[in-house]
């Protein structure tokens, strides 16, 4: 049994909120860099160069990469041999988000009620996904999610007879409808299978996968490659202003499902695909 003080969780989450909003992971930087080299449209290339310049300014001057510093999505994998002390783990996570957003000059974009819509002024609550794993470590992913792209995400409850063509069609439909709204070049997270909520969570997790890493299932990897090529052939381009770079990655996760169903979730993220990862 390993004991971890919840204050340690708070401090780490605070730092990770600030880090994720100012510094993109190296894999995303590289994906943007190679897209800038290959983009065919002059205006598209100009926009990709601006995005790279934006990243430089964000890191150097500590200005958030995007003003939409997101709703804080937290994936936390807790080893079953870990014991937390010093208070509620859940409250410690929210407190970390609160401090990160207030002390880190991040935008407060959360309203307390979806219809009454009063800003909570500290960006809490976070969206927390817990998983219990073997061992005595705690892995935390902080993935602030902007809503320009979140709003364009979709869940499709397909029929088994729709098959793989139906799935591909669902992905392309979501991307085409998103177009310029989702701040392309995008990253596409896809969840196939499970239940209504399981496929959506898988799609969100897929966004945190390192760019360039593929599914270990051969047909899924093939679908990732095919979908990336099809999306980049859509013509939407950087900023939606035309070009050959519409997505930087398509990441697909799958899970067993029911004999009657074929759920598909498409979670779209902009090029500011933020995630900070720490293992305690």
């Amino acid at each position, binding site marked *: 049994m390993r004991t971890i003080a919840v204050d340690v969780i708070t401090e780490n989450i605070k730092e990770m909120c600030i880090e994720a909003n100012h510094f993109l992971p190296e894999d995303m930087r590289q994906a943007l860099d190679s897209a800038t080299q290959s983009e065919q449209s002059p205006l598209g290339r100009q926009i990709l160069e*601006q995005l790279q310049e934006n990243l430089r300014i964000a890191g150097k001057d500590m200005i*958030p990469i995007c003003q*939409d510093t997101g709703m804080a999505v937290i994936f936390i994998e807790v080893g079953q041999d870990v014991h937390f002390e010093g208070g509620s783990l859940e409250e410690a996570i929210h407190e970390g988000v609160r401090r990160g957003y207030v002390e880190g000059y991040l935008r407060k974009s959360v309203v307390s009620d979806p219809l009454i819509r009063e800003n909570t002024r500290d960006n809490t609550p976070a969206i927390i996904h817990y998983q219990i794993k073997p061992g005595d470590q705690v892995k935390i992913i902080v993935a602030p999610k902007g809503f320009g792209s979140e709003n364009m995400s979709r869940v499709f409850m397909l029929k088994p007879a729709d098959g793989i063509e139906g799935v591909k069609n669902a992905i392309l439909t979501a991307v085409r409808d998103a177009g310029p709204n989702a701040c392309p070049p995008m990253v596409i997270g896809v969840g196939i299978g499970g239940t209504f909520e399981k496929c959506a969570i898988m799609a969100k997790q897929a966004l945190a996968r390192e760019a360039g890493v593929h599914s270990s299932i051969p047909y899924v990897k093939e679908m990732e490659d095919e979908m990336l090529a*099809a999306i980049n052939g859509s013509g939407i381009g950087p*900023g939606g202003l035309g*070009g050959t770079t519409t997505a930087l990655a398509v990441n697909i996760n799958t899970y067993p499902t029911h004999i009657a169903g074929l759920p598909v979730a498409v979670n779209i993220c902009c090029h500011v695909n933020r995630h900070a990862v720490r293992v305690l």
Partner: protein
Amino acid sequence: MGSEQNKHLNVPFDREEAIKLKAGDYVYLSGTIYTARDAAHKRMYEALQEKGELPFDLQNNVIYYMGPSPAREGRPIGSAGPTTASRMDKYTPALLDLGLRGMIGKGKRNAAVVDAIIKNRAVYFAAVGGAGALLSRSIVSSETIAFDDLGTEAIRRLEIRDFPVVVVIDSEGNNLYETAILQFGLIDKVNSTLP
């Protein structure tokens, strides 16, 4: 479509200047603009319905759909990129009819907005979404002028210098989002049979 030459334009600007702008033009804006996004639009719309007045004169002015992150000490503003324009579509035709000349945002507009743009000879610009740190450098000053309680969604008056935008929908209704896709698309049309 569009010269794609870099142009410089002072804001506010009048109908004649708007007519000269073509979809695809890359334009650097300088002058005074106003920010308003979801909640501010809802309030402006309600104020119009109830009292027939707005917090600022729309005539020849430009609204930037933007809610910034907080400014660090000594800086005019935090990160300051565009938000998705379509959420303001419901309120926009009424504002255009009152003289609003331009909008800066990102993403598609509906048919009613395009019609109102043509009718009033206005223009819709896009700024690069997700480039809020870069765009903040073109903002010289920022002052909250209404709805302070809305926080990031308050109406701000911004002084901008060489703020980079692209004309997406011009005063004749030409739409760069529609034409650019055709230019670079490899597939005719993404077939969709889904709802």
